[in-house]
Structures are given as C-alpha cells and as structure tokens.
C-alpha cells in the first residue's frame, strides 16, 4: 500500500517537475540564475556587497550580448536574512519553482552547510562566493566556491606577523556561535601551532555580544605580542575598541581572519584598529586595469567602494556565465563539467578550480595593515 502511494506520489511530483517545460519559449530569451544572500538583518552588509558585485557583472555580461549566443542572464536574488532555515527555503524555491541550474551563495558558511546538502541532492550547481569555512566543498560534487578558504589565507598572515614583527606569544579569540568564525579559528590555531607560536589563552564570545571586557582584561594580564581574532566585522570592531579602552597598548597587534577584511572596521573602530593585520585575496588598491575599472564602475553603480565580497561576487558571476557558455546549455550537469575547465582572469587574479572544487591558488593573497582607519598593503 505504502509503495503504491509513493509511486503515485512520485508520478505526481514527476509531472509537476515536467510541467514548466512548456515555458521553454520564455527560457530561450533568458537563462535564469539564482542567488541566496543576506539582504536584511544584522549581517546584511555582506549580502548587499555581494548583490552589488553580482549585478554589476550581470549588467556588463548582458550588455555584451549575454550567453549561449544572445540569451540574457536573469538573476533572482533571495534574501536569507542570515537565517539557515530561510536560506534553505530560498534554495527550495529557486530549485523547485524557478528551476535554476545554478545557485550563487549563500553568504555565510553556516548557511551553506544547510543549503548545500539540499541543492547537491537536487544536482544543482552551487557556487559560494564568500564561504571560507573548512569542509564547504566536501558537502558534495555540486558544491563549488570561488572564495579562498581561510586555511589558505591565514597562514600567510600569521607568517608575516612572525617574520616582520617578531610575534611569538599570542592570545586567540573567536566567536563561538558561528561556523565561519569557528572554522577560521581552527585554521588560525593550526597555522599558529605550525609556526611555533605560544598560545597564552583562547577566549570566546558570541557574534552579537557587545561587551568583551572580561576576556580582554584577562588577555591584558598575560602580556602577549598579538591577539588573533576570528569573527564577523561587527564584533571585531567592538573587541578592538574595547581592547584599547582597557589599555592594551597599540604595540599588541590584532591579527584578523577574513571577517576583519572590511572597510567597516575602520568606520566603526577608527584609530583603535590601527596595526591590525589581515590577509586578503583582493584589495581595492590592487593594480591592474580590470580591477581599477571594476572599482570605478562599482562605486558609480552602488555609491560606495566595493569590498572583497563584492569583488569575489563580481568574478563569480563571470565565471558562472562563462561556464554556462562553455556548457552550451543551461544544464546543471554540463555547467558542472564546464566549471572544472574554468580558466579566468578577473579582479582577483588568475582563477581556476581544483579537483576538490576550491580555488586553485593562494598566490594572490596580500597582507594588509590598518592605518588611520583604512587598510593599506603592508610594505
């Protein structure tokens, strides 16, 4: 009986899935790509930057004739509000109703760990542009990312701190309620141990906390050379401000993970953030015509400077469009094959995927230092 029911169910679902084939007349005009980003809530800054990057690239691609011999790309961006459940619902909608062959995003690693299994099971290519946690692409064969994982960037930063500033004894801090921050910390800890740092203490806080005085007072008493921190930019700003307020001297540098790599840090923390080191796969002042044009166009379109999330999104839109072209059809399986052949040179530098669907090289990583509330390339 139950088998009969499930067969009936399967047929019903099958016919539902087949129905939109009738809309191919429309589909010939456009190829629809989905994206899931945080457009509201406390972390909306990330999603908004990504949206700006995606849309800028999209405009350029469509103006230049689109893909597959003249089809325009349409982008449907769903808001996850930073909420895993909402992100999964958005994915179900994009896959089930809009039938997109490719989903870009979601914004946070946390969300990707929820969305990835869903899209992967439905065999829809999913390309994270900002998901840097460990294990993202291991979710399944349809999950790609264009963002360098933290584990590729952080060792470069820590090594620079050691070689250049003689850092030996460190305190480590991270937000313990967020996959991105925790995994960034794991990478930092592994790199710190490998470089032979002495870890004086490990302190945690919540992503939405605003008081860090207890942890920082404890760290102050330990006389460390530097403090590593893995979290999103909002709590990092609060931590560096309070550290200076509590009298931790400026000679004790902060070393940030990917979350610290945002102009927001300077806006909020101002001079308190000076000296902070962060490794970045992209930097606004990076030389080269492609990047300069991107920065100027982004600013014109969105009224503010791009950050690395916008840059990664911009390149990703191009990478996806190229893969659709190479695939010859808006078909998820073929696009997946095409992505492996990616050989693209964008604002981030030369880009290709490893067999594990991660970015192939970390050569482009630059170490930045905060100075007067702005990042500068560390000379």
């Amino acid at each position: 009986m139950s088998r009969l029911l499930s067969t009936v169910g399967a047929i019903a679902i099958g016919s539902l899935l087949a129905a939109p084939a009738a809309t191919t007349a429309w589909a010939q005009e456009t190829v629809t790509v989905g994206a899931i980003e945080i457009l509201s809530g406390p972390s909306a800054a990330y999603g908004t930057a990504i949206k700006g990057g995606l849309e800028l690239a999209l405009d350029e691609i469509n103006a230049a004739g689109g893909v597959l011999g003249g089809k325009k790309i349409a982008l449907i961006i769903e808001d996850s509000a930073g909420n895993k459940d909402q992100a999964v619902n958005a994915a179900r909608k994009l896959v089930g109703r809009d039938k997109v062959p490719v989903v870009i995003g979601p914004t946070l690693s946390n969300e990707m760990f929820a969305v990835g299994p869903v899209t992967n099971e439905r065999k829809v290519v999913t390309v994270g542009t900002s998901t840097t946690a460990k294990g993202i692409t291991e979710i399944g064969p349809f999950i790609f990312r264009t963002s360098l994982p933290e584990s590729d960037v952080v060792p470069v930063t820590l090594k620079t701190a050691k070689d250049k500033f003689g850092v030996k004894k460190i305190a480590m801090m991270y937000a313990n309620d967020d996959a991105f921050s925790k995994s960034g910390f794991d990478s930092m800890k592994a790199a710190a141990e490998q470089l032979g740092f002495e870890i004086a203490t490990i302190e945690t806080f919540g992503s939405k906390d605003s008081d860090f005085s207890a942890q920082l007072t404890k760290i102050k008493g330990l006389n460390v050379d530097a403090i590593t921190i893995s979290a999103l930019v909002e709590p990092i700003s609060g931590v560096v401000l309070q550290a200076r307020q509590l009298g931790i001297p400026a000679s004790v540098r902060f070393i940030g993970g990917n979350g610290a790599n945002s102009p927001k840090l300077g806006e909020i923390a101002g001079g308190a953030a000076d000296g902070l080191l962060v490794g970045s796969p992209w930097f606004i002042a990076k030389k080269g015509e492609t990047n300069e044009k991107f920065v100027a166009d982004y600013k014109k379109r969105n009224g503010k400077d791009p950050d690395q999330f916008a840059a990664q999104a911009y390149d990703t839109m191009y990478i996806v469009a190229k893969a659709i072209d190479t695939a010859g059809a808006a078909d998820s399986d073929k696009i997946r094959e095409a992505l492996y052949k990616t050989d693209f040179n964008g604002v981030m530098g030369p880009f290709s995927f490893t067999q594990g669907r991660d970015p192939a090289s970390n050569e482009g990583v630059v170490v930045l230092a905060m100075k007067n509330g702005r990042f500068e390339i560390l000379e």
Partner: protein
Amino acid sequence: MLSQQLVNGLVLGSTYALFALGFTLIFGVLRVINLTYGFYFSIGAFVALTAARSFGANIWVALPLGAIAAGLVAVVADWILLTRLRRAKAGELSSLMVTLGAVLALYSLMAVFIGTDIQRFPFGFVDNSAIEFSGIRISLVQMLIIGTTLVLVALLFVLLQRTKLGLMIRALAENEDAARLMGINVGLTVAAVSFLSGMLGGAAGVLIGLNFNAIQPFMGEHMMLRGFAVIIIGGLGDIRGALIAGVLLGVLEVLTAGYISSNAKEAVAFTILVLTLWFRPVGLFGRAQAKRA
C-alpha cells in the same frame, strides 16, 4: 586584575539594569509583556545618532532627545497595539503575541529606512578618555552609564512615591477597576507609564550605543533576552530588584568569563533565571515595587 574585572562587571551590569528599568515598569504596572520595548531602545539610539550627525547635537541634547522620541513612540505603540486587548481584558499571552509580531515588523521597517549596517556616534562625540587609578581603568562613558542608572532609579522612586502621578500609577498597578472607580484617569495613566518606560528604554539605547559603538536596528533584540532574565530575577515590576539583578548578572557574567571560561558566560544568566523561577518565582526581593511602594 580582579578589581578591573569587578569594574567591568559593574559597567555591564549597569547596562543591563538601565535596559531593564522601563521593561519592568511596563510589566509591573500595565501587566503586559511588551516586547516592543526592545524597539524603543533601538529608536532612542537612532534619534540621538541622527541628532548628533545631522545637527551636531552634543550628548546633553541628543540623550534627552532620544529618550523623549522613544517615549512618544512608546505611547503610540501601546495605544495602537494594546488598547483593544486591555478593554477586552485579554490575558498576558495575547499581549505577548501582539507585541512580538509588532516588534519584528518595527525592526524590519527600521532596517528598510536606515539599513542594517552598524553605525556609531561621530568620533569625539563624547570624551573617549579613561581614568586610571591603581591599575583600574574606567572610561567617562562608562561612568556616565553608571551615574545615569543611579540617577534614573532615584528619580523613578521619587516619582512613584512622592508625586500624584506616582500615586495614580501605583493605584493602577494594584487594581485597574478600583483605580477607575476612584476617579483615576486610567487612559492617561497608562500613557504616562508608556512614556516613562519608553524614555527609559530610549535613554538606555543612547548610552549603551555610545559605550559599545554598535548601533543598528536589531540592537534591542539582543538586549531583550538579558532584559527578560533581569526582570524575572529581580521580580516583575520591581525597580530596585531590576537594579540589583542587573548588576549581579553583569558581575557574574564577567567573573565567569574572566576566571572560568568565556564559553560558560551565557550559561550564567539563564541558570540564575531557572533557579529563580524554581526557588523564588516572585523574584529575589518579593513583591513588585510599583505596588508595594
């Protein structure tokens, strides 16, 4: 280091207490769990921020402005959301649900207009320096928070115990029908209580936003959880209880993070909350202040 940690705890606890004052007043007098309270906190901070940025107001102008704006918002919100429920003598659960829906809508609305980026008061808005004596550092903003909390608690006591409005409020807290029969204008008193608690929430928003430099629409949401813990531990409607419970909670959290593990910090507030509900469901200090006074 212990003395610095105690100061840290005192400051943190004062922010909890400051936030909880208005919240406990609403509950103690109006008998509603008004979740829009978190929004008054956010809007107060934003009004002050706008005043500071656009009109160059200093803290002594921006703070009362933020507080008064939040007070007015509170009167309107209470009137629109809860008048009908009050008339129908609906239970506490209905006010909880109505205000939960409303506060989510209000936060989102605010995010639409203002955006969700965190913002801060202009650099140099208040003197950012700190005083240091025998190894303890405390900033002027932090002293302002502690001072304001104490002043507001004192003012609230005087208002409730020594003024006619206070008498009306206490009568309302005791029994609404009896108060009405005694000729008290209940509508006006309700509005006054809403205004007062909105002002307290708004002032808390300005000062806490100033201390932590993280102003954004959802800032009230995060405080709300602690606010709940504080008013339950302190006793619903108990102003002195809120003050003591806030400081207690802050100090315990800081000591836990400093000497046990920062991971266990969150556990403290809610363990005390559960213990209070088990052993002293009326709160640490018994009967509600607004009634007893």
